């Protein structure tokens, strides 16, 4: 007899003796509970077995402990005949899964039984403990199940599987492909999941893989399995046909006993007895899903709209504007809502760019996803627009182009044109006082503020502009013309005086030259000519009219000017030569006259 056979028989004998003893000690049905193991790691499960030795009618209350999750995994009913007497028994096997670490007390299932204690330690480092989705936190107590799903391949020891779900059609480059990775682990046969599942191959990228998978439980081929489901978006970077599979690293418990010895363990379908006798060892394995073929195509160039930005999926659009009534210059918000499923990261719209009588601004967008992976939802574009003219205005329809992978062609969705009513701006209002008063009265806003002085009566001349007259271009032309005219006159006077001064200077120079040369005739001719021009300007005469007789008449004979005119006549007609000192004297006379004229 082998040692394993001996241990099994000892266990059977112990159970049988205790049952018989209990029957002999009491007439009441005996209900007792055991939990194995009493100390586990977080992420593992313990097994709670409630055995009822009796007719099975004793009600059993399902324990409820905060932080522990109880799930019924099996019920058995047996009738044993021992020494001619029948002994019915029923067992309820529950899996106890801790949600947190700590020491838990499981209350007694019957008033006469004892409470149980379960110690839960934190998971050893390096082990990945998936957290259950909140939606799966309250599973039904009775498991449902069926045969192994199609396309699922269990590991050789039947402890786990990985299933990859992808669309059964061709996909396109740039398309967001929703995928689902399901990891099934047979209860008690898998110690831990050591990481997130991943895709095998370099031609794919997996985006938005959730760290909180959906947790579920299911009977597969009659065996309880814990299922973790991840959903994600798959992107393909190049065309071709690819083999796609998913793998998940985990630690499974490998049996060290023969199948025949392990029959009793499998009787309850869990490793309770294996753990009890230490007949398993942990082993790290990568569980892989069966490969699937995925055909990737490029987007067709034919029929591609000009406003196509790479969005692939199925979309609908709707637009609105708020408010629908506004004043000229008031900002309004034009919204374009794109709903559907697909590659929302490629969903883009320039909205309206150049619309007559409207001022448009760059839009901004926001995305609200309806699933955890961002595959479906609604993207909203908001664009501020401002009307520049009053009246009934119509904003043109908006359009959005995308590629529908189901119909395999480009589609363009269009919204309906939007009608808005634009009122004149208050800033541009040309209402009269009467209109304002009437409008105020009609709206009931008329008030009578005490302290406001009364209106003015009487007509006043109106002005076309509030800009002061002296700043208006038409008025400014008049002073400008005046300034120019005065400037021109001033310049003319200056030139005339400049010409006279120049001729006098020339005459003085000629007189000085004649004096130096001793030319009496030339000197007096120049002196008389200079004085003639000077007096002609003063007396409004021609220079020739300023003669000695005229000098005599106007200035008298006792005068140096008169004497100079006489000397000039003498030198011209008699040829008398005066002294050289006379030149200086008469030059001074002429200069004095010129200086007197300048000073006036």
């Amino acid at each position, binding site marked *: 007899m082998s040692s394993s056979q001996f241990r099994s028989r000892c266990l059977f004998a112990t159970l049988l003796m205790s049952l018989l003893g209990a029957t002999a000690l009491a007439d009441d049905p005996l209900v007792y509970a055991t939990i194995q193991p009493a100390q586990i790691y977080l992420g593992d499960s313990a097994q709670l077995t409630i055995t009822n030795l009796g007719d099975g009618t004793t009600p059993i209350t399902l324990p409820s402990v905060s932080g522990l999750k109880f799930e019924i995994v099996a019920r058995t009913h047996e009738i044993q005949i021992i020494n001619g007497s029948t002994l019915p028994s029923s067992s309820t096997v529950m899996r106890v899964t801790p949600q947190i670490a700590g020491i838990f007390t499981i209350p007694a299932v019957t008033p006469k039984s004892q409470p149980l204690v379960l110690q839960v330690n934190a998971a050893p480092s390096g082990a990945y403990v998936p957290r259950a989705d909140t939606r799966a936190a309250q599973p039904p107590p009775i498991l449902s199940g069926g045969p192994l799903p199609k396309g699922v391949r269990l590991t050789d020891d039947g402890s786990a599987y990985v299933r990859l779900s992808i669309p059964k059609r061709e996909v396109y480059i740039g398309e967001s492909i929703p995928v689902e990775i399901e990891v099934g682990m047979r209860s008690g046969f898998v110690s831990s999941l050591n990481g997130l599942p991943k895709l095998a191959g370099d031609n794919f990228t997996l985006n938005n893989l959730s760290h909180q998978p959906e947790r579920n439980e299911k009977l597969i081929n009659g065996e309880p399995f814990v299922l973790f489901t991840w959903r994600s978006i798959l992107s393909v970077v190049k065309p071709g046909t690819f083999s796609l599979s998913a793998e998940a690293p985990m630690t499974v418990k490998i049996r060290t006993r023969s199948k025949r010895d392990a029959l009793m363990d499998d009787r309850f379908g869990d490793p309770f007895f294996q753990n009890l006798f230490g007949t398993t060892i942990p082993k790290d394995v990568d569980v892989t899903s069966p490969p699937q073929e995925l055909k990737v195509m490029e987007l067709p160039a034919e029929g591609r709209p000009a406003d196509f930005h790479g969005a692939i999926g199925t979309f609908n659009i709707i637009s609105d504007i708020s408010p629908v009534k506004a004043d000229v210059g008031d900002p309004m918000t034009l919204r374009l809502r794109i709903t559907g499923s697909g590659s929302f990261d490629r969903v883009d719209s320039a909205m309206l760019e150049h619309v007559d009588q409207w001022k448009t601004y760059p839009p901004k967008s926001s995305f609200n996803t309806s699933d955890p992976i961002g595959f479906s939802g609604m993207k909203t574009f908001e664009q501020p627009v401002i009307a520049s003219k009053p009246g009934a205005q119509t904003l043109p329809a908006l359009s959005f182009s995308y590629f529908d992978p189901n119909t395999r062609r480009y589609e363009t969705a269009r919204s309906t044109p939007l009608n808005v009513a634009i009122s004149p701006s208050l800033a541009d209002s040309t209402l*009269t006082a009467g209109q304002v008063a009437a409008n105020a009265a009609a709206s009931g806003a008329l008030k009578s503020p005490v302290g406001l002085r009364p209106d003015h009566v009487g007509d006043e001349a109106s002005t076309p502009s509030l800009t002061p007259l002296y700043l208006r271009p038409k008025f400014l032309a008049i002073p400008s013309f005046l300034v120019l005219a*005065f400037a021109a006159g001033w310049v003319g006077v200056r030139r005339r005086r400049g010409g006279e001064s120049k001729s006098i200077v020339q005459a003085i120079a000629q007189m000085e030259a004649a004096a130096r040369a001793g030319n009496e005739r030339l000197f007096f001719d120049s002196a008389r000519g200079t004085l003639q021009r000077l007096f002609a300007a003063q007396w409004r005469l021609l220079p020739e009219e300023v003669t000695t007789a005229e000098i005599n008449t106007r200035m008298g004979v006792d005068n140096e000017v008169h004497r100079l005119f006489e000397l000039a006549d003498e030198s011209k007609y008699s040829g008398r030569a005066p002294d050289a000192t006379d030149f200086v004297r008469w030059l001074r006379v002429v200069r004095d006259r010129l200086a007197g004229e300048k000073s006036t």
Partner: protein
Amino acid sequence: MSTLARTLCLVAGLQLGALQALAAPVPAGYSAAGLYNLANSYARAGKPGMAVLNYERARLLSPNDPDVEANLQFVRSSAHLPAETRSTFDRVAGVASPSLLAWIGMAGLIVVGACVLAGRLPARHRHLRRAGILLGVCMAGLTVCNGIALWPKLHAGVVIVAATPVRVSPVPMGDPLFTLPEGETVKLAAEHEGFTLIRTRNGRAGWVSKANIAAIAP
């Protein structure tokens, strides 16, 4: 006449007045009395922004009208806006209306020009000529001073919408820097695509939608 009948007549009269006012042609141009009456109407209608705007416009045409001044201060104080004080320079420069000062300045220019050109007058008229130049310069200088005093007002605007948002950039998005009360007078610095860059009395600047502000001198 009973109270009900009087009320009906009053309402009917108001409605009739409204119809007549709407049917009447809008007079072209501005007049101080018209703007003053319009401002009074806005003040009674509870629109301090438009009231302040039209009082300011009326004051441009008639700077020394005591009614305009009093009602403007009343509306500003009713709207809890700070009182506006006029400096001595403003009072002197605004001794007459800008239109009258325009003609005075023109006359001064003519006097100065004539006196400058009359340089060939006999010596006994020199003092008269100098006095004429001085008078002309004073007349033209008064007009120039009026222009200097009015220049800020000609580049100012009035907020006509309550709690007008002032934004950091000329786009209608994002949170405003601060808000302006209705009736506040601000300096208009620049314009850009439906927005006006304003500067408040205490030096704060930002962009305001054109629909929320109106220039005193459009």
